[in-house]
């Protein structure tokens, strides 16, 4: 059983997420080039971070129209877990697999730093190793992470408990001061209606071992690994 990582021209966290998947599962993911039209049989698809197509036009806009995305969309609709990290989240919104958009950070600058996240939904394949309401430290590294959706969409997300992560303080306070990029409702990650597609701006793959100064990202990959092993 296996996972796939989609590689676009300009992806640059593809290796990092492959390392994280291997560290948790012991298995190398298959790297799939964006111009492919078929996906191999797999139990998890990851859209990695980076600057697909240089972020030209809009972050994720061109990648969302890559040949592989048709196959990915079909798999997502059939229930295969899809994880979009950073640029991967941007691609998922541009592809219409998740609602809303990631706009330029409110402060207009690129931000790379550890932030705190409150885990808001643990009833999915990604977060089940976290505790409900757990506060985790995970880095962000983006220029366009300011989550926006119209009021109706936001209502739908909130009432269906589809917000997976929110920016918060170290003590779990979901406040404006803890919001690094201006995201509505401090949203850092969301799920699709069926809970098998997760998009998030933070990079859990960057904190998976003590020498990288944190392990809070590891639980997500461990959870996915057990999925890979049991599937």
């Amino acid at each position, binding site marked *: 059983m296996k996972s796939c990582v989609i590689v676009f021209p300009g992806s*640059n966290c593809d290796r990092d997420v492959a390392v994280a998947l291997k560290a948790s599962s012991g298995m190398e993911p298959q790297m799939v080039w964006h111009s492919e039209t078929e996906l191999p049989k797999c139990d998890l698809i990851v859209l990695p971070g980076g600057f697909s197509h240089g972020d030209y036009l809009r972050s994720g806009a061109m990648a969302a129209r890559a040949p592989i995305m048709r196959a990915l969309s079909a798999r997502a609709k059939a229930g295969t877990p899809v994880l979009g990290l950073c640029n991967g989240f941007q691609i998922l919104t541009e592809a219409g697999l998740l609602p809303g958009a990631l706009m330029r950070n409110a402060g207009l600058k690129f*931000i790379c730093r550890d932030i705190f996240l409150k885990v808001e939904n643990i009833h999915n394949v990604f977060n089940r190793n976290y505790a409900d309401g757990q506060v985790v430290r995970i880095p962000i590294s983006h220029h366009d992470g300011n989550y926006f959706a119209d009021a109706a969409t936001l209502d739908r997300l909130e009432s269906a408990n589809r917000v997976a992560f929110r920016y918060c303080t170290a003590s779990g306070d979901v406040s404006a001061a803890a919001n690094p990029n201006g995201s509505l409702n401090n949203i850092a990650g969301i799920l699709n209606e069926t809970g098998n597609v997760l998009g998030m701006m933070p990079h859990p*793959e960057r904190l998976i071992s003590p020498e990288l100064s944190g392990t809070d990202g590891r639980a997500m990959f461990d959870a996915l690994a057990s999925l890979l092993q049991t599937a």
Partner: protein
Amino acid sequence: MKITPEIVAAHGLKPDEYAHILRVLNREPNITELGIFSAMWNEHCSYKSSRVWLRTMPTTGPQVVCGPGENAGVVDIGDGQVAIFKMESHNHPSFIEPYQGAATGVGGIMRDVFTMGARPVANLNALRFGATDYARTRHLVSGVVAGIGGYGNCIGVPTVGGEVNFDPGYNSNILVNAMCIGVADADKVFYSTASGVGNPVVYVGSKTGRDGIHGASMASAEFDENSEEKRPTVQVGDPFTEKLLLEACLELMAGDAVIAIQDMGAAGLTCSAVEMASKGGLGLLLDLDNVPCRESGMTAYEMMLSESQERMLMVLHPDRTEAARAIFDRWELDFAIVGETTDTGRFVIRHRGETVADLPVDVLADQAPVYQRPWTPTQPASYLAAKDVPDTDDVGATLARLMGGPHLASRRWIWEQYDHMVMGDTVQRPGGDAAVVRVHGSRKGIAATTDVTPRYCAASPFEGGKQAIAEAFRNLSAVGAKPLATTDCLNFGNPERPEIMGQFVGCIEGISEACRALGMPIVSGNVSLYNETSGVAIPPTPAIGAIGLLNNIDQMATIAFKQDGDVILLIGETAGHLGQSLYAREIAGRTDGAPPAVDLAAERRNGDFIREQIISGNVTAAHDVSDGGLLVALSEMALAGDRGCTVTLPDAASPRHAYLFGEDQARYVLSIAPGRRDALIAAARAKQVPFTELGTVGGIDIILDGKPVQTLAALRRAHENWFPEFMEG
């Protein structure tokens, strides 16, 4: 076109240089040929003012695989791997157009590294800006930082360290020095020496446009009030294309297609072609009709001098050419056979069926004029006694002013705009003495730092040159790394002025002496001269980039205090040298005086000692003492660990302000678990390493001789707030 003296002068060639060209050619060059000469013989490419001095620098050692002369230096890091690194300036373009100037500086230095077969693993940058109250400074800081981030973040190489200074001497001539480190397998290093006759010369990467024409010549001229008009000579970077070029080149280099490769940097197609031919003792034929162009109607002159970015020139094995083309097709990059190697020794360029240049390769590459420029030694500054520098009546306020001022305030505002974690190997992030990246898939680490103290160099080029290397040595040692080698980026004013040349010579001699004593040979570098505007030169700024090796990252030290009750030790001798210290300048307003002398034997002894102690696990935190002196070093360790300290000055320590703020060299602060104290002190005695026990870690204040002088909270506010508040204006 008739070549007039005006045209010659506009190409930056001196009358005697042009006379030399007429002599070797035995005819007048045409305009394309003149352009090629100007590109090859300008200061930036030919090192004509600096070459005689660069030759005197130490460049060898058992760890050196390849020293200066290639795209970057190559150093052995064991296990069949090498580190490949270099630092380079992009000063003039960054002043004119800060975002693109800085961005293309980063792009250029990364190409230098992956041209040699290495995957870039870390970027650093050494930046100098004008005074904080100079109108243009904020705009330049903002643009340069955004440009560095914009390029490095997109290509996905972490920017892990660097340094920033503000000084009125850089008001109209900022310095942007970018460093890149890559890692390659030792048997997969690629060089620029062409070989074989009739082998295809291949152009890959971006198309050629009219941007950057004469960029290298601009970098070899002084500025004046009309510099703004040079904006069109600044190149525009495309990090996305560079990312594709990086992946395509490394994929190609995994096979055996490449004979020689050279990135098109300064003077683009001209420099790369001549370099490869000259190193191989060959000739080279280029047919410009095959060069991928961004716009139609470009002349041979424009194509040969364009500095369009993200381009490479290669000599390939003829039977591997089609396989190579397939790789570049997949990465959607141009791939064009634009010429071949010949045995004529001539650089021949054809365009639209005509020969537009026919020049001897050796003359272009090797017969650039070399100048023994006259120089006058810098007048030595006299010693400034501590008693002549007023004491402070409020140590706490003075400390907060230094820690919350432009020189020592946290650089977080800058490095949070750089992705410093991508690639998943950053084991020591910005903010410490040196950044450390893990060698992917191993337990080894490469430590990296950039250093120079321009105010020391201005007061004494020789001591300042020594100090730059010594500080790099200390920063690497303080994380537990063994210093390996050095790259230098020598930024100075107009070398035709003897006093500037005197600064250059003094710094080179100091750097060389320290490199020899500390075992850190120079393996690569770059010289940036003519950093002057309207006749005012920058402070002498020989920026040093250095790398070191940790065999096991688990043994790495950081500056953060770790545990309450740990013992604090000062290593090295404190005479209380205040001349050229930040205290003297910022608090007492004294800019005179000699900089601290650097005792290289003490540096070696103390550095080797603390490295051994770090590796043996006796040390919980380590920090070198540099700008601002002892109390600043203690405060930085306290802030990083969020633990205060209680310190008692030794009885002999007077005058107190000199002890607290003096910038004596060869010193470190260590924290040690109480159980390890005796062992470490015994080891220090055995090695005759001077030490002073200062106190213990703990609490929420900096407590000095029984009195709290600052709370960590107040110090942190001052330290963290200065930069964002400055930038917000």
